[in-house]
């Protein structure tokens, strides 16, 4: 027998064996009843899928449950794709069990370092209708990505290395989503920038899709992250007042009221189709023109292909541009790249040699003072980060960045580091008599980002434009807020916790952002608004605040309307229709 035949034979044998064994992949996020578990879709690009997390702030959350129809009865082996999120010489913090038809499987899960399939035990399936539950044991962020039931005892093999393809095969996914939808403008990312873009474009009559991976709008300003909006309204006060926040302290529960207002206002536009809990996962460009953006529902896994003549990337992370091949930058430019040095602050401000030390991400948190005593456990896995730092609430400076971590690729590790910092610091504070009545009221599980990819436009906005107050002829955004750039405190003092930052402020008069920083240099139909606009690291220092990013969004929404009217590219709005565009902006006030 020659070699080819042998391979064929082995291949067939595997398929046969496979077809005999019954197996079933269940995505945890598709559980019908999530109980107290939350869907975490933040890291799908790294993980391949959203997952369920038991974010109970130390109190075990109620079970998640689902019903699954099994084709065949019999003895099944069960695995969960999970991990011990803080490996070390302590009990794994996030432990859980699987319960099948009311019976808990033998093994406790969430105990292995790195995402992998942990064996849960075996169970006899006696009826076709099977009840499956996830039972949290600790309340400290146990996580479950998927469950795998198989009559064979063979551990899901290359699942780890090639999970994406394996999943697609198991779930029977085809390459292209079956459902397609066409719009005048497709906006991805519903932070302040995306919301403002949607409203501005919709007001001009465009049919808009707004794809946002959360159940509520606002991004960092949402009640899920709770950052208040800073900056000025520029020419877009009317639009931005529909979505902004009051000036409460960061992390305040008051974010809830502004949440209601924002969601209500955006939903009131008939020509905005809102896709909440949908996450874009791909964008494809031919000849430098984006043809479509594909998105998936974060819980059900349904998919839609969105087509449009023009797209807006307001994901904060520049995802659409990244997938479509737009040029982008990440990290700190050298001081000489754009002449952004500030001697007083030296390397902390702008380094002599470029590096990837960007501003960090945060997790905000808040306490509640009650009339009774609340205990909080000592957590060795958290105190290894918190050390002896004590705190009962967070603020903006709870921030983490390190030069081996990427704010996008390593976002899960960053978020987890912050959770450890928070639980550890709170645990330390609780040892003090004065804090005995405090309990944790809220800890976000969403990582609030400041800086990641910056898409490159026809103009790169820098610190010099702030210093010289460059009055661009295409100025469409204006701001007076000081520039502030952060650095980690432990860079200067190793005794400081590694999760706290310090801000360097540069006071300034009004500065302007040109329209040319709001569309891609090399992708012809891509706008960008928000912190992923075209700027240098220091250039982002001022305009990253959310009324400024909101202004960018509104400016882009209006530009899209001009494009639509003249069948023009974003660039042509600048080269051919600038006057008309600026007039339209003036009319917004």
């Amino acid at each position, binding site marked *: 027998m020659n070699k080819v035949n042998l391979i064929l034979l082995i291949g067939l044998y595997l398929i046969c064996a496979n077809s005999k064994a019954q197996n079933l992949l269940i995505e945890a996020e598709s559980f019908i009843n999530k109980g107290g578990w939350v869907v975490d879709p933040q890291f799908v690009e790294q993980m391949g899928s959203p997952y369920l997390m038991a974010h109970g702030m130390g109190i075990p959350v109620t079970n998640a449950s689902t019903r699954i129809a099994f084709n065949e009865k019999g003895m099944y082996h069960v695995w969960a794709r999970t991990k011990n999120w803080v490996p070390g010489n302590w009990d794994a913090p996030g432990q859980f069990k699987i319960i099948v038809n009311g019976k808990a499987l033998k093994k406790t899960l969430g105990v292995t370092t790195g995402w992998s399939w942990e064996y849960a035990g075996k169970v006899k399936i006696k009826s076709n209708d099977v009840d499956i539950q996830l039972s949290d044991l600790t309340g400290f962020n146990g996580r479950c990505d998927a469950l795998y039931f198989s009559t064979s005892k063979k551990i899901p093999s290359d699942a780890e290395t090639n999970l994406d393809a394996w999943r697609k095969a198991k779930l029977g996914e085809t390459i292209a989503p079956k459902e397609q939808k066409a719009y005048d403008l497709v906006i991805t990312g519903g932070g302040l920038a995306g919301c403002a873009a949607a409203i501005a474009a919709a007001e001009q009559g465009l049919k808009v899709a707004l794809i946002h991976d959360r159940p509520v709008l606002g991004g960092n300003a949402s009640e899920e992250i709770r950052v208040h909006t800073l900056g000025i309204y520029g020419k877009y006060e009317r639009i931005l007042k529909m979505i902004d926040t009051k000036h409460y302290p960061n992390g305040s529960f008051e974010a809830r009221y502004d949440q209601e207002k924002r969601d209500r206002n955006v939903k009131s536009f008939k020509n905005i189709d809102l896709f909440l809990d949908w996450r874009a996962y791909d964008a494809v460009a031919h000849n430098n023109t984006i043809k479509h953006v594909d998105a998936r529902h974060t819980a059900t896994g349904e998919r839609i292909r969105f087509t449009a003549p023009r797209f807006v990337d307001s994901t904060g992370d520049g995802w659409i541009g990244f997938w479509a091949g737009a040029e982008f930058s990440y990290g700190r430019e050298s001081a000489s790249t754009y002449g952004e040095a500030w001697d007083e602050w030296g*390397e902390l401000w702008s380094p002599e040699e470029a590096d990837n030390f960007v501003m960090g991400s945060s997790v905000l948190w808040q306490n509640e*003072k009650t009339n009774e005593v609340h205990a909080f456990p000592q957590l060795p896995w958290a105190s290894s980060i918190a050390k002896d730092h004590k705190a009962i609430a967070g603020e903006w400076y709870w921030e983490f960045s390190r030069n*081996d971590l990427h704010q996008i690729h390593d976002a899960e590790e960053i978020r987890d580091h912050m959770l450890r910092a928070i639980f550890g610091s709170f645990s330390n504070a609780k040892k003090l008599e*004065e804090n005995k009545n405090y309990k944790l009221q809220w800890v976000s599980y969403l990582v609030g980002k400041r800086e990641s990819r910056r898409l490159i436009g026809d103009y790169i906005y820098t610190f010099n434009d702030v210093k010289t107050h460059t009055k661009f002829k295409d100025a469409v955004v204006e701001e007076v807020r000081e520039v502030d750039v952060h650095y980690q405190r432990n*860079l200067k003092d190793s005794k400081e916790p590694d999760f706290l930052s310090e801000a360097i402020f540069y006071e300034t008069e009004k500065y302007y952002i040109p329209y040319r920083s709001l569309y891609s240099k090399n992708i012809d139909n891509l706008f960008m608004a928000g912190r992923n606009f075209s700027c240098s690291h220091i250039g982002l220092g001022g305009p990253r605040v959310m009324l400024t990013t909101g202004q960018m969004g509104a400016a882009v929404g209006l530009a899209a309307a001009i494009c639509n009217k003249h069948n023009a590219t974003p660039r042509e709005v600048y080269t051919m229709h600038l006057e008309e565009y600026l007039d339209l902006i003036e009319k917004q006030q």
Partner: protein
Amino acid sequence: MYKSLAFIALFFIVMGFRNQKKRDYNPMFFNMTNELKDIAKDEPVFKFEVKSLDTAYSAQINHDVRLLSNSNGEPRVFFSDIETSVCADGECKLANIKVYWNLLGNYVGYGIHPELPLTKYEHDTFEREDYAKLHQLLLDENSILKRRKITDLIDKIPVSPSNIDSKDLDGISGATKKEIKESVVKGGLYSCYTLWHIVHGEAKEKIKTYLQSINTPALNTYFLYAPYRDYQIYALKQLNKAEFKEHSKQIASIFQSTDALTRTYVLKKIPEDVLSEQRTTSQFYDVFPHIDINSRTLLIKKLKDANSTAVEIVSKHVGYMTKNQLSMYLKYLEETYESLNGGVKYNLIKASNSKRYAYSYLIKEYLKNR
């Protein structure tokens, strides 16, 4: 009698002018070591202006900044004996303080005239711990007071201890108020605010400019070998490649003892021909377990420039690596080493079996796949 008193006073004034080096440098707080030991020259080098914060009584007083040099004529510190008014609610009092800046214009200490103690709002004088707190405040060049107008600070202090019930007022969040309260002397907000702005104001800027006029290679060498971090990084920034080589021993010793910021700078700047010397490599890589994580990342990135012995030194310390650092290191081995040298392999196997190291499983996988 009065006449003779006046004469004595005059005598002291004249002597004071003529014989400046007899001045008594006896700061209450001073964050340098020997710089005041051998002051032989004290000369006024420029004036700066101190404005009163009180709008009703807006006085501007010029003060001398003096350069103190040692008996070799080497400049050591800047100094100014300042009298300023500290005003609150239209009522002003004088505050006297003798301020010391280092040659870069960074505040290093202060003293007072014993007969003229600093006072608080209620006219109480500063206690010992208040003086210490003021010193800490002045050392913080990025103090919260920097960006605040005095009018922003009034009435909003003290704050309630719990920040959940501190409704926000005029852009000062509860946390900010707490931070201000913690950083200033209780009851001494006005004094603290005024003095911070004097110490970190015009004088500091002028010192920086003045330094340019007296800077020499010798002075830079003094900076490089002095035990102060701001001096060291300033000096490092001035060095060209040849000088980097010339001073590599001192630079290695700075690297071992300094903060993450300076270490990072050194690692970015160190020329390949310096790092590749075996001795320098071991000075830098031997301290791998004892330094900050960011510098470790750069050490791994710099393996390609270092002496080949670095790979093995680092292999002893894989247990200190973060997950990404380990991946970087293993990737480097993959790309550069056909077969692992015995020592490196031994250390990797050891780490792969370690129960304490969270990522030992990744080393196992790596060794398996080779």
